[in-house]
């Protein structure tokens, strides 16, 4: 197979070993153990897939954050999507990841489809718009989820629907933004997070600037990071440098940019302008495991109300508590390792998930389950790498 540019060169094992030695040397100079949170589910997936956690010095702990949009959607919103799927004449379209997330009663969109509802999965919001154009007799509702990475694609689709005059298309909007949950985590009294690996693809849109509040207001260093193993290891070396050099203690923490090949300081101005035109910030939005966070969700702006499924349909909008058995909240805030959840791998598995963290391959629990399900001590005891 031909080498894949921008991929294979960031997976070089020799370079990874050399970086790990640098990380080990720098970690020896830490005064205290360091907990680093990777916010994005894509990073969580890379960390588990390559077993990076097991290769790091004991003094560095990785916490898996709430940056998997499928994992943080609350059951009430899923119940609303299931309700929409049951309305006469409605075709519901969404990303594959969301199809298997259970609402209350462990019923998913996939189950709804098996029972006769017209639920389709699409690769792009534009595919949902195309469904509406080719099926003028159906009301096509696109269930939008995702952070600032994905919201611009929805925004383009909404503007295109307007320009084309497509009347049988609407959006059930569940887009969220990254800053409010990060603030909620930093404000949480029990937060052990010492530094952040910031989500590279969100940053392509909002820029490194979008994370400046972390050092400026919370004194936490952050590095905007790519998604290959060398990217994550380099980011850890960069974070350690800020800490062992004394810069963080002296109040001079910064936002580093490890992902310069894709990310600029100001992000993508075209995408940001689209977000401002098409969306409005909700007063508050509920997150699984994190509760209601003010100003953390997006809805369609009033100018696009005719394309807003929440305006077009009488969506029930009920709030439903998180499942009692599952500890997604503690996992999503880095207070509990996935394999320590009481439901992990027994009541809750990728085939029969209770919590959303077990559904998406980027969920911390699904990644931990799929790539071993071992904590560090166990992995080493059964023959882990050189430690």
């Amino acid at each position, binding site marked *: 197979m*031909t080498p*894949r*540019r*921008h*991929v294979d*060169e*960031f997976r070089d094992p020799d*370079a990874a*070993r*050399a*970086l790990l*030695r*640098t990380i*080990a*040397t720098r970690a020896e100079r830490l005064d205290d153990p360091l907990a680093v949170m990777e916010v*994005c*589910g*894509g990073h969580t997936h890379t960390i588990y897939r390559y077993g990076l956690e097991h290769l790091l010095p004991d003094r560095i702990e990785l916490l898996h954050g709430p*940056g*998997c*949009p*499928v994992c943080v959607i609350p059951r009430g919103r899923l119940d609303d999507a299931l309700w929409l799927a049951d309305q006469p004449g409605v075709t519901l379209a969404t*990303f594959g*990841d969301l199809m298997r997330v259970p609402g209350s009663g462990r019923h998913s969109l996939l189950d709804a489809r098996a029972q006769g509802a017209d639920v389709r999965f699409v*690769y*792009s*919001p*534009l*595919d949902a718009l195309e469904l509406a154009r080719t099926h003028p007799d159906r009301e096509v509702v696109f269930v939008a*989820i*995702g*952070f600032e*990475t*994905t919201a*611009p*694609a929805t925004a*383009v689709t909404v503007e295109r629907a307007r320009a084309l005059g497509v009347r049988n298309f609407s959006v059930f909007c569940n887009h969220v933004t990254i800053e409010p949950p990060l603030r909620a985590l930093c404000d949480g009294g029990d937060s052990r997070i010492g530094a952040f690996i910031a*989500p*590279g*693809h*969100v940053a*392509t*849109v909002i820029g490194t600037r979008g994370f400046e509040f972390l050092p400026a207001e919370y004194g936490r260093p952050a590095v905007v990071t790519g*998604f290959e193993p*060398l990217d994550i290891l*380099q980011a850890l*070396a960069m974070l350690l440098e800020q800490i062992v050099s004394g810069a963080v203690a002296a109040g001079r923490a910064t936002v580093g940019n*490890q992902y*310069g*090949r*894709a*990310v600029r300081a100001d992000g*993508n*101005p*075209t*995408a940001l302008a*689209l977000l401002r035109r098409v969306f409005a910030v909700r007063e508050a939005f509920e997150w699984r495991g994190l509760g209601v966070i003010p100003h953390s969700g997006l809805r369609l702006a009033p100018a696009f109300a005719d394309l807003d499924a929440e305006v077009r349909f009488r969506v029930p909008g009920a709030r439903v508590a998180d499942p009692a058995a599952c500890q997604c909240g503690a996992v999503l805030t880095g207070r509990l390792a996935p394999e320590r959840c009481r439901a992990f791998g027994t009541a809750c598995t990728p085939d029969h998930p209770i919590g959303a963290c077990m559904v*998406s391959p*980027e969920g911390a629990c699904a990644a931990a389950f799929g790539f071993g399900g071992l904590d560090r001590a166990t992995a080493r005891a059964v023959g882990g790498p*050189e430690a």
Partner: protein
Amino acid sequence: MCLGVPAEVVELPDPTEPRAIVAVAGVRRTVATDLLLDEGLAVGDWVLVHVGFALARLDAAEAARTLDEIRRLGADQPNPFDGAADV
């Protein structure tokens, strides 16, 4: 979810339309370029593809700089395993 796949722009079929044909590991598909309208995309550029959209242009010079920095960081440190018996 926030997955971005590097892809090479292989064709810009209609310069007045916001779309490009890209190749990912030899597979061609059409992506929307609405988010990179001001980038002046050209055949041979690399982009990150996310949910059917070109989300960002990949900068080859920056990628090379990052790889240099990774090598420099790795070479920076003495190898703690040097001199040790078969580790």
